[in-house]
């Protein structure tokens, strides 16, 4: 077994702290969520909302821009949790937009399905652990050919030149190539995460009070809305914007604070790593 820091010792109000403390133990949000829900039986609504956002922003910075695709994963999960939590804390509202409601259920079901899938493989891994531990109790015979037979074996170097040797060495030493391929692939999303903050910081000061809906008009893919939502939250955390929501599920009013002293560059650095 391995060392596992217990989350029980950590006040629930400071989930952000617990995530930071346990990054070496928890392998990401699914791991954390599964453990919280199944082992610790923590009710998610007991965790403070800002703590969730903080936790994921912390997680985001920890990733140091290595893989923004994963970062957006975090954001998506964070956003769903925030939304679920918001619903549960607020009294029942009868003016819920059915489309929004449907969308949330959809997201929730997706998250649930992914948690179940993650749990499935975690349990499968337990079997692999048992198998490998059993197998590790035996060592295979590796002595190989006895001297008289060595001369018989096909000549290892037959047809092998210095070039082949160089290639073999590079093959053995090379860092595996997948990183670069994937980075190109996710480049558009990478830009959007950083840009969401930059764009908003450029537009909002002169925009007066706008609604979140205005800011996300025309965005088809839900992930872009999520990214923008988290960008707003980040600006709020930085003290750059005020947020106002008249009632639950009502329009979120966003207004730039007149006293905001915010340089978008600082934050972009944080995202880019």
């Amino acid at each position, binding site marked *: 077994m391995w060392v596992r820091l217990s989350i029980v010792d950590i006040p629930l109000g400071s989930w952000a702290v617990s995530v930071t403390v346990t990054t070496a133990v928890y392998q990401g949000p699914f791991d954390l969520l599964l453990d919280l829900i199944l082992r610790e039986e923590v009710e998610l609504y007991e965790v403070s909302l800002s703590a969730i956002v903080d936790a994921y922003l912390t997680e985001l910075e920890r990733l140091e821009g290595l893989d923004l695709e994963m970062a957006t994963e975090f954001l998506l999960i964070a956003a769903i949790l925030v939304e679920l939590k918001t619903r549960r804390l607020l009294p029942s509202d009868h003016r819920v937009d059915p489309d929004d409601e449907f969308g949330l259920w959809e997201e929730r079901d997706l998250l649930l399905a992914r948690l179940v899938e993650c749990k499935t493989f975690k349990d499968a891994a337990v079997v692999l652990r048992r198998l490998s531990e059993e197998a590790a*109790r035996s060592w295979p015979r590796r002595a190989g050919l006895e001297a008289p037979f060595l001369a018989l074996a096909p000549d290892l170097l037959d047809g092998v030149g210095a070039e082949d040797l160089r290639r073999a060495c590079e093959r053995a030493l090379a860092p595996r190539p997948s990183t670069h391929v994937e980075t190109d692939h996710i480049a558009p999303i990478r830009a959007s995460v950083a840009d969401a903050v930059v764009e908003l910081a450029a537009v909002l000061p002169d925009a007066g009070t706008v609604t979140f809906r205005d800011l996300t008009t025309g965005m088809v893919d839900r992930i872009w809305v999520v990214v923008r939502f988290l960008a707003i939250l980040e600006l709020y955390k930085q003290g750059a914007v005020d947020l106002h929501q008249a009632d639950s599920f009502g329009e979120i009013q966003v207004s730039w604070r007149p006293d905001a002293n915010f340089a978008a560059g600082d934050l972009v650095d944080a995202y880019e790593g």
Partner: protein
Amino acid sequence: MDTPEQNDVSSTEFAEAADGEARRAIEAILMVAVDPVAPNLLAQLLEVPARRVEAICDDMASMYRRERRGFTMERVAGGYRFQSHPDQAPWVERFVLEGQSRRLTAAALETLAIVAYKQPVSRVQMSAIRGVDVEGVMRNLQHRGLIDEVSRDPGPGNAVLYGTTQEFLERMGIDAVSDLPPLGEFVPGPEVVEALERSLRVGPDEEALVVDGADDTAGE
């Protein structure tokens, strides 16, 4: 020479003698082999049907067990090999010293599980399932020879697809990936799904409790 075999012309005895000779040849070959030797190869070398090779090998394996040898003959990664008996591990460990650096971490095992069951699978797919970037773990697994690139995704992006290796089978002590228990066995039971659902419910608490119908704490 030690025990001269007499030649009584019974066909069973003849067959037994032939099996005995095949057994000796297999013992000799496995003694010099570095990797598991496939039954087909043994069949080809000894010029006997693969089916009979497998039967002989099974007999040999149980003979060693019966004789309480310090070694066993196992079918691993598609072939037969000699290996030390698991109950002799304490002695062998003393001898080989390298000890447990072979141990796999939780992250490695979970990633391996995904590759084993979903192969061929891309890095992005694995990351999506685990909810974290798996690149570091994968590079480690690849360096250890447990997984490898097996093909390219024909779709856009041509992502590299990964699968498990012979080395993986050897490390798990299994003959083929199909020897792993079916993934269905690991799908969480209703009580786990319920616990997850309850924690992720939509809407105010009172309502959710009514919908769930059960407010007892399930969990494991």
